[in-house]
């Protein structure tokens, strides 16, 4: 048991992300804080948002978000505040500006290109003549035998 206590003392990482002492009393404000947290990245983690992460920095950021909310900031103001301090790296959802336009419009753009291409293909296919059968009689016989299986 002594060894266990030592080990537990050495490993101070909390078991989960949002701890009870962080939760705001006002449920509406807390819900907003959770919503904002899901949009912000834990800057030292690998792709986790601060709501999921149990890293210390994530906790600090969560507390910061709640602090700003209690101070009366709007959601956008809180996010802008964090972006100013940590750069756009904290945003889980990239902004639609500059080169990011490419990212956001890649899907719709490709869909449009594919739709036009497919439209042309379908039109051609529906107008094409059925090519004449080029199978020899033996091949035809073999084919119908296979098809019967």
């Amino acid at each position, binding site marked *: *048991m002594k060894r266990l206590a030592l080990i537990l003392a050495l*490993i101070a990482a909390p078991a989960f*992300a949002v701890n*009870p002492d962080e*939760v705001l009393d006002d449920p509406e404000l807390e819900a907003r804080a959770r919503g904002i947290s899901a949009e912000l990245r834990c800057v030292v983690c690998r792709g986790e948002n601060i709501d999921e992460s149990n890293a210390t920095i994530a906790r600090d950021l969560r507390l910061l978000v709640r602090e700003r909310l209690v101070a009366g900031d709007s959601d956008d103001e809180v996010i802008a505040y964090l972006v100013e301090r940590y750069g756009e790296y904290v945003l889980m*959802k*990239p902004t639609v500006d500059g080169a990011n336009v490419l990212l956001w419009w890649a*899907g719709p753009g490709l869909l449009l290109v594919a739709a036009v291409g497919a439209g042309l293909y379908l039109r051609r296919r529906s107008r094409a003549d*059925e090519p004449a059968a080029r199978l020899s009689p033996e091949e035809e016989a073999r084919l119908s035998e296979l098809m019967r299986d």
Partner: protein
Amino acid sequence: MIAELGHVALILALGVAIVQAVVPMIGAQKGWTGWMAVAAPAALLQFTFTLAAFGALTWAFVTSDFSLRLVWANSHSAKPMLYKISGVWGNHEGSMLLWVLILTLFGAMAAGFGSGLPPRLRARALAVQSAISVAFLAFILLTSNPFLRLARPPFDGQDLNPLLQDPGLAFHPPFLYLGYVGLSMAFSFAVAALIEGRVDAAWARWVRPWTLAAWIFLTIGIALGSWWAYYELGWGGFWFWDPVENASFMPWLFAAALLHSAIVVEKREALKSWTVLLAILAFGFSLIGTFIVRSGIITSVHSFASDPSRGIFILLILLFFTGGALVLYSFRASAMEAKGVFAVVSRESALVVNNILLAVSSFVVFIGTMWPLVAEMFFDRKLSVGAPFFEAAFTPFMVAIAIILPIGAMLPWKRARLGRVVRSLVPAMVLAVLTFLLVWAIQSERTILGPVGFLLGVWLVAGAATDIWRRLGAGGIGARLGRAGRVPRADWGRVVAHAGLGVTFMGIAGLMAWQVEDIRVAQVGETFEVAGYEVTLADVTREEGPNYFSTVGLMELRRDGKLVASLRPEKRVYPVQSMPTTEAAIANGFWRDLYMVIGDPQEGGGWAVRTFIKPFANWIWAGSLLMALGGTLSLSDRRYRVAAGATRRNVVGGVPAE
């Protein structure tokens, strides 16, 4: 000694692979039968050698031979046997060896079952398959040798990452690799067909089962991974849009597109060049996935290997095979002449739309995954692309697929009358809309996600039911059910898989829209209420496992005074890796999961406790299993068994085909 034998076997496998990649290819070009005939025995031999190497490594793990660097770094003598074995592929070197083992297994299977194929096509396909082996065997031997010894063997190992010591994750990589690597068969056949300049129904009949099998394995592998994340990471997330997850999801989407377009080639001899392109892309994305995971280039939760030299090696493999195949494609695609003519409203067209949506959505995932890298390299911006992006950019494609799927699946080939199909689907539509209204009315939160998810889910399931109802012919229920056995398995497979997609839709929407979460400090003996459940923290004890220490909470959940579940969430500490893990305790249910997590003792006394009510959670994986089951039914369809049976008569003999 055994490890050295494994090393030698791996080198021999490389030698055989080189022969198999070169000789049959030349033979097929020159028309030399003898040279072509080298392919099949070489494929079997290559598999045998790789299996021996894999067996040697497994032996080292099972016997805890810590003189092997890999075993020392990833195992521990106190680790349970299951995880000693799964530890073989729970690390970079071993997982690459598993990758190659499965690659050679597929090659051996194509050699064993493929005697019904045209000999040239078979020789070329096996040569291409073997070229992939050459690349990856060289990769293992040159950069990731699993058989390296330590000069002074330590007394004990460093243990496996405790997060990976879990039954769900033990089998996640093998399934995923069976899927990834299974797509190599489609790729090899596509390249062989390009060299041949010929794609026909027989080709598609060969490619489709391999693709289907790969897709089934990928489905199960992805579902296992997501299920693991759900119960292991301690807050019940099931999908994170993490680069490593995306790496498996992109090939899945492409495989789904490919197995649909291959039907058009098989039945209608159209969409040929597109299908070949999809086969190349599907495996290309498997390689991209391997590159993302193995190079650790985009760091993520799962990545446990990062070494740039390895990354560059895999990148070269990726460029050589995908690039080479695409160049070949650009020269030869025009030779694929389409035969089938069809109207704009037809099943062919519906499958084209399916392919567009699946392929474009996969590209969206790809661009989102790579964008942080691109933005940093070319635009000097350090940014993140996370779940909110994918939810916004990817979901619309899935919604579109769900809307058109039931209609498209019922359209006849060649020329269809849309009105007729839509009329038969009116009951399904009415049911879906009624569900939407009902769900909207009874939900306490005003989210649109839940009702829309159920609208689409019910539409898919009811649409699938309508589909099979029509396939069963005319007459009353009895007469129709009497014909159930006569409907081809492929039709059952289609219906079950499509219904499964609907079930998964409902699970995801239900869980995301209506989850209830409660975080608090609870004293031992205290009772609190969460969404109609009375939760009691009855006791907290400390226990010791084989290679960990554990804090166990005893939680009792009651509804109206009646005990619903008694749960034991744990917080474990693995001393060797000095890493804590949360072991959530879950009471699984049809309608909801009760999900409990225990955290740290608090300063003022009591314990941090998290309670989740997760509605419809299991529907996500139930739907995935239905999709895999549908694929399996389709795979067992008579037309593939007949093809395989004809082969078996020639090769093995003595086994009745039916």
